[in-house]
């Protein structure tokens, strides 16, 4: 089997991840819910994971990172209560539903949202930020990399804009945390949401949000906190403010082990490998008959994602052939990115997404190129006859 669905979740992870989860299942209590050794062990693992995430993401204070069960929860935890009626938010058509839907929900509460458009290659025009700025604009909410095209947002440029106008910069790093270098302090990111099970190579059910010092989040989820039990309101200190209820200590222990691997290997090195695979695949398929790629493949910086279609073939049918005939795992369909599919005119067809990971090899890429070539040539032949 060849696994090229790393943008959905990484399947191949450092072996220490599973070992850490098993060890955690057998030894961790509930963090912050007592002072006996198993509960303290859980709290130590979770704290140590915060420290490692802070190091990876360039955050000076680990307590500014709250754990969530995924990027969607992280985005909801900030987007649902960040804005007031009358506020205006700038976002893009490149966003995943985990950004789009919380903002649609905010719209029902009187928040106005502008989606910046993309060009034929799925790139936004950064000048549109300025053109769509209003006196009521409060924030730019933007993905670091599209989960459909792999196009990467120039966060330095967007941060310059938000800083210049006193706006918040909220970044969805679902496709980049662990895959591309991210430095929240150097870039000046106010809020960064990430998942633990993709590039960070932790277990599913892990994720988190960085909130810069000085910014007070208003939790959308309240409940048990392990501290101040007699308060009628949820504690407002980070990270407790955004961590109501028992944390996924077992999953976070796995994420901790994954972070050890990432920090020892280096995100730059992992990115270089994944980029090599992605560009090798593009080189192999871009000139094939009837193959259409979506995204900007001339860009200097890209996520290791390639989406394509073969003629008018249903993307689901192509993915099924890739699995059944070649044992290659890819993702088909709309990828929860409806506005970008509408933009590309692929609402019905969807797209076949190949996403490469740290443990993929050049030989696997070559096998995928062969598979796409055979499917494309067969399609071309059938449509010629």
């Amino acid at each position: 089997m060849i696994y090229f669905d790393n943008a959905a979740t990484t399947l191949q992870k450092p072996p220490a991840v599973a070992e850490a989860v098993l060890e955690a299942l057998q030894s961790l209590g509930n963090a912050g819910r007592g002072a006996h050794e198993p509960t303290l062990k859980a709290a130590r693992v979770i704290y140590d994971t915060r420290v490692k995430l802070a190091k990876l993401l360039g955050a000076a204070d680990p307590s500014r990172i709250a754990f969530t069960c995924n990027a969607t929860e992280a985005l909801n935890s900030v987007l649902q209560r960040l804005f007031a009626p009358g506020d205006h938010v700038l976002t893009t058509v490149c966003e995943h539903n985990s950004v789009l839907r919380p903002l649609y929900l905010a719209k029902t509460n009187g928040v106005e949202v502008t989606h910046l458009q993309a060009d034929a290659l799925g790139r936004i025009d950064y000048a549109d930020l300025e053109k769509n700025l209003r006196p009521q604009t409060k924030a730019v909410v933007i993905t670091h990399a599209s989960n459909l095209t792999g196009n990467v947002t120039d966060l330095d440029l967007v941060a310059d804009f938000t800083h210049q106008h006193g706006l918040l910069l909220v970044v969805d790093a679902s496709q980049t945390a662990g895959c591309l270098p991210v430095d929240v302090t150097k870039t000046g990111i106010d809020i960064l949401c990430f998942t633990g099970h993709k590039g960070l190579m932790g277990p599913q059910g892990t994720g988190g949000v960085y909130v810069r010092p000085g910014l007070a989040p208003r939790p959308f989820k309240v409940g048990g906190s392990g501290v101040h039990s007699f308060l009628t309101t949820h504690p407002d200190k980070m990270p407790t403010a955004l961590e109501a209820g028992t944390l996924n200590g077992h999953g976070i222990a796995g994420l901790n082990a994954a972070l050890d691997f990432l920090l020892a290997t280096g995100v730059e090195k992992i990115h270089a490998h994944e980029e090599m695979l992605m560009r090798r695949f593009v080189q192999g398929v871009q000139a094939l008959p009837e193959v259409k790629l979506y995204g900007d493949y001339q860009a200097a910086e890209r996520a290791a994602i390639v989406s394509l279609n073969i003629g008018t073939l249903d993307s689901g049918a192509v993915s099924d052939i890739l699995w059944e005939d070649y044992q290659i795992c890819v993702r088909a369909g709309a990828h929860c990115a409806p506005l970008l599919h509408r933009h590309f005119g692929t609402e019905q067809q969807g797209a076949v997404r190949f996403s490469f990971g740290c443990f993929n090899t050049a030989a696997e890429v070559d096998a995928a190129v062969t598979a796409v070539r055979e499917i494309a040539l067969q399609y071309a032949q059938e449509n010629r006859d």
Partner: protein
Amino acid sequence: MRLKRLYMIITFATTTEAMAAEKFCLEHDIGGRLIPVPQEISAGCGLAWRMLPEDFALLERQRSQWSFAVEECREIMM
């Protein structure tokens, strides 16, 4: 039965601060351990760092390096 003696009790606003304090004390060879917050300080739940007054004096001397915030410090016989 434990013999009562005087301890310095430090409390924190979050479990994360308690963890940071424990890490700091261990790294700087300062004695003490995490315990449930005593009722004399706060009803409910949470963690406190319990230490001997002489260890607290050592911790105090390194206040500028603290990587954690404390909510309250109080001497208690326990």
